[in-house]
């Protein structure tokens, strides 16, 4: 037990990786789901344990040396309040969506190949968890590619329902690879300057040896660091689907199988945002990124545009999955805006919104998955009058919708509270206004659907619809319920987010 405890940071990545392999070999005849479910549950337990460990440790960090090689020579896994929180999000959503996936995916693809799906599913989780936990910049790239490659394939699995999944996947693949390659090139530049790949080490060398020379007559490597950071920022923005680099996202979310959409929407972009936060706040530091390079202004412009354009595009959709996908682009804007502000409340807003939005959007995508499962389609006309047929599922969808608007007592409101306060504290009144206008546009697109659900007329001559099977309904309600719960009592999520924000900014609360 003690050994497991010590090796938790490695196990949380290695376990799904190994289980993925095993699943692809022996996971036939329904065993695949059991393996995936068992792994996901174990990962969740480990993530929670890590979070507790970190919050209770005095230094707020747990470092794990792979093969006992110390940094900067070996790869280290570092857990601090920020990524422990993100790990928990990924593991929690992963476990819940795995439970949901069983029935959902079985109706969407060839049942004889389901074990490959679960193998890919576990690889995707491996990648996401790995990106989050690693303290090594190159290792991050590798894990990014592991998650991305499995994601491309998972998206393409939507082909049975709609062949556009294939074009969406190839589009995502091309853009995702370009993003990852940019990131890789960026590391090369920083490596040229520092000779290190360890994030903490790079940060240390930059802060002690490189940046101090910039004020003098002989600035060292100024252009190199500029270019390196710029390349990494662009690469990660692509992964994060930050406006205007969001082109791959709507189709990928729309045509992927339901469970994949739910997983991606609530974890993949979140991890992208995490990596971006890590690069800005830990790797190069805000002193460089914001005060010297004014990246914050660029990010704020992008975020503002994302909020307005994303939400507006969402309003114009009639395909509900696409509507949610565009709404995600807007929500990514909120997350980005939070860390672009750079103050404690902004960062807290960003981190807490990672969590809140994961719950909200995950629940909504799962509710739509139920609609797809029962009706085969998720257009606006398909949900007309469904409020009476699928009362629980539609209630979950509506709860999520209220969260997107940011109605009080939903998780979305808590995020908005921190975000707008942070905007005002930073003197960015225009951004505060954009956030509030964004909520109103969210009201428009959510209400469009809610009206259809509750006031629409079911078309004539359609067969009756039954409520979702329990294994799909329970996870959906679980996430929707959580999105309400964390709006009523946000003390836990806010505590973790605030601790992470304080930690990143080096402020003692």
């Amino acid at each position, binding site marked *: 037990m003690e050994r497991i405890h010590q090796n938790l940071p490695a196990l949380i990545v290695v376990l799904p990786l190994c289980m993925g392999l095993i699943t692809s070999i022996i996971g036939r005849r329904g065993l695949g789901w059991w393996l995936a479910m068992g792994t996901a549950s174990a990962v969740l337990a480990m993530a929670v344990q890590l979070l507790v460990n970190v919050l209770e440790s005095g230094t707020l960090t747990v470092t794990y040396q792979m093969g006992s090689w110390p940094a900067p020579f070996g790869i280290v896994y570092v857990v601090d309040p920020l990524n422990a929180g993100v790990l928990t999000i990924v593991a929690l959503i992963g476990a819940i969506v795995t439970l949901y996936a069983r029935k959902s995916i079985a109706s969407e693809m060839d049942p004889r190949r389901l074990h490959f799906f679960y193998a890919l599913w576990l690889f995707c989780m491996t990648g996401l968890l790995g990106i989050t936990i690693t303290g090594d910049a190159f290792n991050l790239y590798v894990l990014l590619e592991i998650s991305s490659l499995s994601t491309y394939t998972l998206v393409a699995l939507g082909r049975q329902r709609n062949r556009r999944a294939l074009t969406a996947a190839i589009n995502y693949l091309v853009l995702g690879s370009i993003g990852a390659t940019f990131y890789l090139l960026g590391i090369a530049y920083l490596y040229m300057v520092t000779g290190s790949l360890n994030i903490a080490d790079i940060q240390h060398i930059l802060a002690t040896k490189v940046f101090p020379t910039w004020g003098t007559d002989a600035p060292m490597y100024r252009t190199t660091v500029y270019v390196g950071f710029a390349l990494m920022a662009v690469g990660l923005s692509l992964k994060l689907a930050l406006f205007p680099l969001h082109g791959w996202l709507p189709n990928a979310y729309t045509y992927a199988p339901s469970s994949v959409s739910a997983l991606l929407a609530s974890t993949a972009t979140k991890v992208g945002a995490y990596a971006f936060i890590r690069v800005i706040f830990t790797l190069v530091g805000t002193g460089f990124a914001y005060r010297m390079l004014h990246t914050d202004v660029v990010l704020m412009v992008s975020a503002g545009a994302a909020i307005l354009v994303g939400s507006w595009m969402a309003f114009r959709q009639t395909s509900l999955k696409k509507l949610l996908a565009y709404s995600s682009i807007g929500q990514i804007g909120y997350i980005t805006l939070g860390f672009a502000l750079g103050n404690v*409340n902004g960062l807290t807003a960003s981190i807490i919104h990672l969590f809140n939005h994961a719950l909200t959007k995950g629940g909504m995508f799962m509710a739509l998955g139920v609609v797809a499962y029962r009706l085969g389609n998720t257009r606006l006309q398909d949900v007309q009058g469904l409020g009476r047929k699928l009362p629980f599922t539609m209630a979950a969808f509506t709860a999520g919708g*209220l969260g997107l*608007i*940011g*109605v*009080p*007592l939903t998780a979305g409101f*808590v995020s*908005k*509270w*921190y975000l*707008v*306060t*942070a905007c*005002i*504290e930073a003197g960015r009144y225009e951004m*505060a*206004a954009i956030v*509030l*206008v964004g*909520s*109103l546009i969210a*009201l428009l697109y959510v*209400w469009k659907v809610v*009206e259809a659900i509750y*006031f629409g007329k079911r078309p004539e001559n359609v067969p009756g619809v039954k409520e979702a099977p329990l294994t799909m309904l329970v996870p959906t309600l679980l996430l929707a319920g959580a999105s309400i719960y964390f*709006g*009523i*009592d*946000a*003390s836990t999520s*806010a*505590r973790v987010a*605030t601790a992470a924000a304080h930690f990143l900014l080096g402020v003692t609360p």
Partner: protein
Amino acid sequence: MTPEMTILLAIGVPLLGSVLIAMSDRVPNLREAFTLLTAVATFGLVASLYPLVIAGGQPRVELLTVIPGVPLSFKVEPLGMVYALVATLLWMPNSLYSIGYMRGNNEKHQTRFYICFPLAIASAIGIAFAENLFTMFVFYETLTLSTFPLVTHKGNTDAVRSGRVYLGILLTTSVCFQLLAVLWIAALHNGGAVSSLNFTHGGIFREGLASGAVSPAIFGLLFFLYIYGIGKAALMPVHRWLPAAMVAPTPVSAFLHAVAVVKAGVFCVIKVTVYVFGVDLLQSQGRGDWLIYVAGTTILAASLIALFQDNLKKRLAYSTISQLSYVVLGVALFTPLGIMAATFHIVAHAFGKITLFFAAGSVYTAAHKTQVSQLDGIGRRMPWTMGAFAIGTLSMIGVPPVVGMASKWLLINGVVEAWSIPDGHFAEVFALVVILFSTLLNAGYFLPIVYRAFFKPLSDSDRAHPHGEAPWPIVTALTFTAALTLFFFFWNKPAYELAELVRRAVG
């Protein structure tokens, strides 16, 4: 039972009630029994706090911490007590009336209808007892959302469209203005410029303004954001939602106009003026002077519009808009007596207006008439209904011996008090002119209805369709509220004492 318990129960009991109502879906009689029981229990709980509040007690209780540092907490003070008492008292006849109306008209989805009422009442009590800006905002929003299914109850295109207007205006104003103000104050609070997020005697900006941490311009802007963020007060130009909500069944209209929703609006206006911005600060800074003109214009404009409405409920809706602005006018005087008048008028208007709506619904149920022009001679067929209507009318106009007179009297006293403050007196003259003219207009759009009902002969087509009074729950309910309107003129001690306490808190 401790007062703290009572506060939580006053919010908890309606919530429990709605659960019980939902569970007794199949047994209408049991369901209605739960509705009435919940109404009585809730009123009992709120009323049991009254002696304590009159004695100067202000019990507070914290429910839970939503965001660290920002709890969902409640504190009972006289002003909130007024609103809570009015809402829960009138909810009893309103429930009785709903039962008669819904059964009499064979409305669909009755369970959903009855579930939403207690939710809305719980929200109203939450607003009334809110201790801080956050709690008030939360319950303000839940009140909007829980009344939305009521407004769109009919579910047809018209109802959906009106529901859009209702939700659109109320949420837009509250999110864009009120939430912004709340968060702005929270940001100021984080920076130490504002003493507290709680409602505080004399307002929370005193130190900030004195030390210069809050500029007067921001103070004024926040006041503006708050006044227009409270869309439920239906100040022009954000009043459109109220006439739109007229598509709802009449018990809902009565609920919106007299029991909970618009009252929540003007209550919030008074509450933030007194306990957030501070009456004397607003008076001395001069940053709220515009309000008296907006309120006055709203009174006159809404009355003029009401004059030309043939639809009875629409006419009543515009009358409500103008009456609400009386409350705001009282606030805008920024004097203790003005605040007292405003507080008292919440009560007075509630009694009169609920009676009027009950009568309108009664006419619809018994005779299926919605237009003023159809009401010729109806008073002889429905004497109770139209008699109650007449009493409500007198209260709106402000004629003794009904309660409307008392609040108008207080309002004029408030204007006189404002006169003693040395400034141009222009605003006071304006206020007096508005009160005078609007009284005439009120008479102009209400008295013809009473005249028609009692003194004009029945039309020929009406003669062919005989009908009597509405079902007994409706008649009982409207008789009760009409009696209250009369009775309250002679015995308004509780409301007067509470309003007096509010006045003292201000002065």
